[in-house]
């Protein structure tokens, strides 16, 4: 790169300035693209909230398996243990229905057992379990943003 240097062995001022402004322009372009990506990822969603309360524990007597279709979860109570299992099929997002043996997806025939473990069909993953807590007002609170290990119950 002899031509890039002048007789003093330094990079000429014009070249340096051109180089610096190119870096600046390219940097702004990258920033613009990144800020677009941030823009398109919503910070607030207007649909079904991910954190919601479903009622007091006594509304779910032991042995309950209730699918709450709007929230796309199934509330399971065994004894004094309560859990919330997703009813969104892990295959392609259809709503699974409660069947005799657990859950069955009407779209592409995925089947799950009572705990959401895949027993047949194309589903690649078990149905996720969501974090269930008891809110200070005594209601059960489900957080669909927080997944827990299957078999994790809230004891009431």
């Amino acid at each position, binding site marked *: 790169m002899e031509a890039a240097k002048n007789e003093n062995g330094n990079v000429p001022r014009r070249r340096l300035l051109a180089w610096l402004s190119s870096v600046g322009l390219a940097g702004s372009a990258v920033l613009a693209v990144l800020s677009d*990506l941030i823009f*398109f*990822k*919503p910070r607030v*969603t*207007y*649909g*079904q909230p*991910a954190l919601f309360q479903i009622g007091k524990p006594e509304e779910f007597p032991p042995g309950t398996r209730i699918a709450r*279709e*709007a929230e*796309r979860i199934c509330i399971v109570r065994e004894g004094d243990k309560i859990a919330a299992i997703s009813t*969104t099929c892990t*295959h*392609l*997002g*259809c*709503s699974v229905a409660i069947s005799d043996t657990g859950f069955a*997806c*009407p*779209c*592409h*025939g995925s089947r799950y057992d009572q705990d959401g473990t895949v027993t047949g*069909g*194309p589903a*690649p993953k078990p149905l996720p379990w969501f974090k269930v807590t008891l809110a200070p007002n005594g209601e059960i609170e489900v957080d*669909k943003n927080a997944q827990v290990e299957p078999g994790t119950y809230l004891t009431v």
Partner: protein
Amino acid sequence: MSTPTQEPGVWNAIRELPSNVWSSVFRNPLPSTDLERASTSFTNFFLHIHPVKVNRHTLRPSYTLGLGLISTFLFLILVVTGVLLMFYYVPSTTQAYDRMLDLRGTVAFGIFLRNMHRWSAHGMVAMVFLHLCRVFLTGAYKKPREFNWVIGVALFLVTLFLSFTGYLLPWDQLAFWAITVGTSIAAYAPVIGKQIQFVLLGDANVGQEALLRFYVLHVAVLPALLTMLIGVHFWRIRKDGGLSRPEKTGDSSRRRGDAENKRGEDAELPAAGTVTLKKVYGMQGFVRGPFLKLGNTPDDSVFSWPNLLMAELFVLVLTVSAILVLSLAFNAPLEQPVNVMHPPNPAKAPWYFLGLQEMVSYSAFWGGVGVPGILVALLLITPYIDRGTGGVGRWFARERLLANTIFLTLVVLNLIFVAIGTFFRGPNWTFVSPF
């Protein structure tokens, strides 16, 4: 023209008004000489997209099958009918379906417009794909047309995405579950799949945000992108030397190279309006590149006006007629309004994604992301891998037996998967016979 010996009077001006207005808009009379034919093509804004002359081979219906033109005209129909439908459509989960019913019940020609839009959309997906097949099978993607092939592949993908975003807008059961299934396929992309799905839907599930996003993409972003890409695609056809054709079609200057050859289709033609026999050279005369040559060398080309224009008009009339007949004969489907609780059984993606969905039912990642990703990548690099120069401009050329065989095998496999997904899959995605 009046003689300039005296100032023209007002009366004269009024008398000549029609012809003066006409000649100020159209610089040329209806062409009767070659010079005027050439001049018509390049002085008219709407016609100057054409070269002044085209090779006879380009006009052969059996070579192009008019597939690119048909795709373009379908896009035009889609823009016109789409803009009209926008006047009555509201992208709201509570109103969209009612608006569909209104199109059917109260809006004048509403059902007809919707039919035209729907059948043109399906037609465009099919025609763009067939155009891609034509270009491959005639070896038309070869040097110097490699990059135009890449743009063509991009056009194909944008077309698919346009159709996909339009699918949601009626907000019926078909729309809702097709998009639920389709965006879930996107979620299988590694690492960023879930993020893509979330950004696409604007929420965890298909809902109001997704409807709004798909609407904006469908009516503004993607059509603008498609229009721009079409512009580049057409421009490059000209700059890459017109449509591909076999070597020996008369114009020896087609190959890249020699600066001695003065070429450029506009080079030897006079400026607008001046009818002169003196040769005028523009800068185009010195541009290097594989341009069609005009000049003393006999070649196998004919004037675009009227030859190319007539061919285009013919394809336009044919395309519009076909869409009109289809729209009179078949109504676009509209199912029950969205019921988030009850997916139909089976829930199917749009037909052109059913091949994907069929593959997804075997392996989620490979069917939904891996195989399609590899196929698109293969399409994109094809012209940079297949560098042979033989067999350009002929269907199923013997020199291209291997490439064509691989391509056709993949196409047929894809079609088989689409057919299985469309006709042979019943409730719970079990195998059923359509007969």
